[in-house]
């Protein structure tokens, strides 16, 4: 197996691009079926555009699941770490703006800091999700346990 980097090699500020995803209604429907989250937020146009949500606002369209975005952010980490570089241990996210069908989202990961504890070596990573307009639609903090 291959080790691409070690804890000592890894520099704070190192960054890489994760998946770039074009969101479609079909994808949202598939995620709903696969995750069993059938909330009408994700399929019911009439409900979304005619309901007054918090703050008196309605949505422009159905929205993607927050947990689908979480899955893409997670994938950025596992594609980088698995199988031999490290473990993806934690991801804390904030879903900041809705993601709609037709949006293109890009995931970016940057190493914010490093830390050795008694038993392991860690990289704290900032994960950002931006859409085609450059809006930051989700952000996250991930914790990678570096194995080598």
């Amino acid at each position, binding site marked *: 197996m291959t080790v691409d980097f070690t804890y000592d090699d890894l520099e704070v500020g190192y960054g890489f691009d994760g998946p770039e995803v074009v969101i479609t209604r079909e994808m949202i429907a598939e995620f709903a079926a696969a*995750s069993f989250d059938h909330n009408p937020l994700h399929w019911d146009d009439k409900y979304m555009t005619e309901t007054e949500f918090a703050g008196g606002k309605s949505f422009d369209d159905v929205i993607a699941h*927050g947990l689908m975005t979480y899955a893409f952010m997670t994938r950025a980490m596992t594609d980088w770490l698995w199988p031999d570089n490290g473990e993806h241990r934690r991801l804390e996210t904030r879903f900041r703006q809705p993601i709609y069908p037709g949006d293109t989202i890009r995931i970016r990961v940057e190493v914010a800091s490093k830390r050795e504890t008694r038993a392991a070596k860690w990289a704290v990573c900032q994960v950002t999700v931006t859409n085609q307009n450059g809006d930051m639609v989700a952000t996250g903090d991930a914790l990678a346990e570096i194995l080598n």
Partner: protein
Amino acid sequence: MSEFNPDDFETDFWKEAEVRAGWDDLEPGVVLRSRPVTITKEIIQRYARSIGDENPLYFDEAFAKSTRFGGLIAPPSIHALFLFACTGHDHFMRTPGTINMGQNWWLHRPVRPGDTIALEARCLDKLIRKGNTFAIHDNVFRNQAGEVVCSGRGWTMRPY
């Protein structure tokens, strides 16, 4: 609660929506009803495909066996699925208009095909901010050996 059957899952979240706890009814700290779910390779792979993730650790048994994982595993975000599969139709997370604001999960060990995952789920806290009502969800996922596979919190904005 009856056993989980993926082909028999109630997908109409409007149905009997009135039986679910609204924000006023949520009792922080009280563990909610749930059921263990045995996860198959097929369910894992359908989930992985839905997020466009074709990592061979989810699909290629021979490859997965040759790695330190020792066999097929599930994507770490699979817990999204257990939030719904392990809970009942009356769980407040299904309330139409529930908006996920954020999520944090600590991943202790991978979920594998054939694992039976039990979810300890509760509303841990509830709050009002800028005039909106929110709930803090607290979730611990364990496998059939009683080992914690994942634990964490989420927070949702409540429609009512």
